[in-house]
């Protein structure tokens, strides 16, 4: 490796490399000195420095890093992914301080989390199809242990196993798609594939098959509807910090991998946008209906992730279909907001799970809606933040979720296409339907009669409250001032439309 390629002043190298290189150090710090949590916090804190510099350098363009003949390029889309991974990651590390303390695998938790953040940042920057797959697999492998973290719990193992098998099947499908692309275009570089795939001489049908394989293969991770079945199990059984990461970052990373891969085949057909919109509608409806009768809070939140993935897919589909960046920007805004809101919801629910059950040594009991009863009197911060998260997810103003949905909807109506208009109205109706399961959460926490679990509950530590407060404040601020993140979502939307050739 030459010095030129590994120029240490390249900020991208630091941004991706730092967490990856530091992960083993975090492991040893945890293993030998029991300092894993602080080492992790330090590493992630340091990673913010290259992130801020990178964010300034990217602007509306991109920055790249050449490693061994391959390029990593950070554009708007990667920046969005890095931003949400890093923000949520930081808060999850703080939050987990108590949550996983004294657990058997605490020393392995933090290095995996740090590695996960680095890998997801890298995944966003891949410019090579196969490289994308390697990052993708690295992400999956880093998260298996985190899902099956409570390895003495059968349910946790079951969730981990389903996650592993379904991810592996998805990854094989992606590989098949890649083989098809390689056979027909002779390259793995996304830009070169695009150039070749758009030519009329290239046979279209096998590339369509490749696209389908990508959509399904990456769609397993992105939780598109018939492939979503691992998600409720994994999200509900993982430690709550990890549930937040899975729901707020990992499935979105799957979505972005899907977009990158499919974008390279944009020239083959115009129907990718339609496909995305179709999956969007399916996800919204199925997610909401599956969540409606759910009594376990974390499972309900997991199902609602499906419907939120649906909103993002809808916006992205519109953007791809009509080549309009506003809808994509709305989707990326919703991606960030969903990360914040769902992260908050999982962390707040997890805080209750922790003080009501886990702290007393009960890893088995799920948190049900009735357990939430009257939590407000004993845990006012958790109750308030959980309510904010639930209402934000339900799309009520003045929280961030409303604004991003609105942006998607407006962009949809701006196309003046009657089918898209109907889809948007369908999405709005789904939003109303979702209130039917978010509202009871709010009612439950403000009951006067505390539930049995709450009366037995333990005290809550400030390290768990702090991330909740920060996230809630962010959600409210973004809801009141939605253009605050336009610098992030705007370029991402433009980058997406550009990637699809708009």
């Amino acid at each position, binding site marked *: 490796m030459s010095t030129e390629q590994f120029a240490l002043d390249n900020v991208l190298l630091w941004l991706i490399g730092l967490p990856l290189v530091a992960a083993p150090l975090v492991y040893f710090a945890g293993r030998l000195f029991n300092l894993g949590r602080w080492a992790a916090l330090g590493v992630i804190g340091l990673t913010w420095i290259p992130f801020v510099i990178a964010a300034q350098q990217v602007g509306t363009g991109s920055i790249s890093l050449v490693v061994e003949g391959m390029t990593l390029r950070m554009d708007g889309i990667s920046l969005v992914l890095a931003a949400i991974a890093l923000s949520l990651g930081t808060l999850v590390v703080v939050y987990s301080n108590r949550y996983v303390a004294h657990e058997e695998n605490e020393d392995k938790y933090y290095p995996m989390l740090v590695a996960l953040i680095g890998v997801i940042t890298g995944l966003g920057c891949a410019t090579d199809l196969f490289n994308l797959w390697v990052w993708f697999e690295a992400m999956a492998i880093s998260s298996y242990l985190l899902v099956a973290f409570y*390895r003495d719990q059968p349910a946790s193992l*079951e*969730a981990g196993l389903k996650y592993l098998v379904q991810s592996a099947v998805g990854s094989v499908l992606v590989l098949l798609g*890649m083989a*098809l692309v390689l*056979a027909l275009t002779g390259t*793995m570089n996304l830009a070169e594939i695009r150039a070749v795939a758009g030519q009329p001489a290239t046979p279209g049908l096998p590339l369509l098959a490749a696209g389908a394989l990508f959509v399904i293969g990456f769609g397993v991770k992105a939780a598109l509807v018939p492939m979503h079945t691992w998600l409720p199990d994994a999200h509900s*059984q993982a430690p709550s910090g990890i549930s937040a990461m899975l729901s707020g970052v990992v499935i979105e990373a799957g979505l972005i991998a899907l977009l990158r891969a499919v974008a390279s085949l944009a020239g083959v057909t115009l129907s990718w946008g339609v496909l995305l919109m179709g999956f969007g509608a399916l996800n919204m409806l199925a997610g909401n209906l599956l969540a409606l009768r759910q009594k376990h809070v974390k499972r309900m939140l997991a199902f609602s992730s499906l419907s939120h993935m649906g909103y993002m897919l809808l916006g992205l589909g519109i953007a791809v279909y009509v080549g309009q960046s506003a809808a994509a920007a709305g989707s990326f805004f919703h991606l960030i907001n969903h990360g914040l809101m769902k992260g908050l919801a999982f962390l707040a629910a997890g805080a209750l799970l922790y003080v009501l059950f886990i702290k007393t040594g009960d890893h088995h009991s799920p948190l049900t809606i009735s357990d939430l009863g009257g939590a407000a009197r004993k845990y006012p911060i958790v109750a308030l933040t959980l309510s904010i998260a639930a209402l934000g997810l339900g799309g009520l103003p003045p929280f961030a979720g409303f604004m991003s949905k609105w942006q998607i909807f407006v962009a949809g109506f701006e196309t003046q296409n009657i089918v898209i208009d109907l889809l948007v109205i369908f999405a709005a109706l789904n939003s109303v339907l979702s209130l039917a399961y978010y509202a009871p959460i709010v009612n439950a926490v403000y009951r006067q009669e505390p539930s049995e679990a709450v009366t037995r509950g333990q005290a809550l530590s400030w390290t768990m409250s702090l991330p909740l407060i920060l996230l809630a404040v962010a959600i409210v601020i973004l809801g009141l001032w939605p253009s605050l993140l336009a610098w992030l979502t705007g370029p991402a939307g433009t980058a997406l439309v550009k990637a699809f050739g708009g």
Partner: protein
Amino acid sequence: MTTLQIAVIGVLGLIGIGLYGLLIARNLIKVIVALQVLVKGALLALVAAGLASGKLNLGQSLAVMVIVVDTVVAVIGLALALQVKRRMGTLDIKDLSTLKK
């Protein structure tokens, strides 16, 4: 029929058999065997794709990495299976369907 086409049929066969095995298998270790069969299909597909595009070395080097990654996945899967056996005393996936609805 050219060797390439036979290879493609081989790929499809492996994928089909692997999928079928995955769908009917009840034993966790067999599930992982099925995953391995699927991966073998992908490997052959990559080599065949290298051949088809005239870039065999590229196909080979991708396949190498796939072997590594999927061996790792298989090992983690086996480790999970062992842990399942240890905690629950069974490898039957029907006993592993407590999380539903």
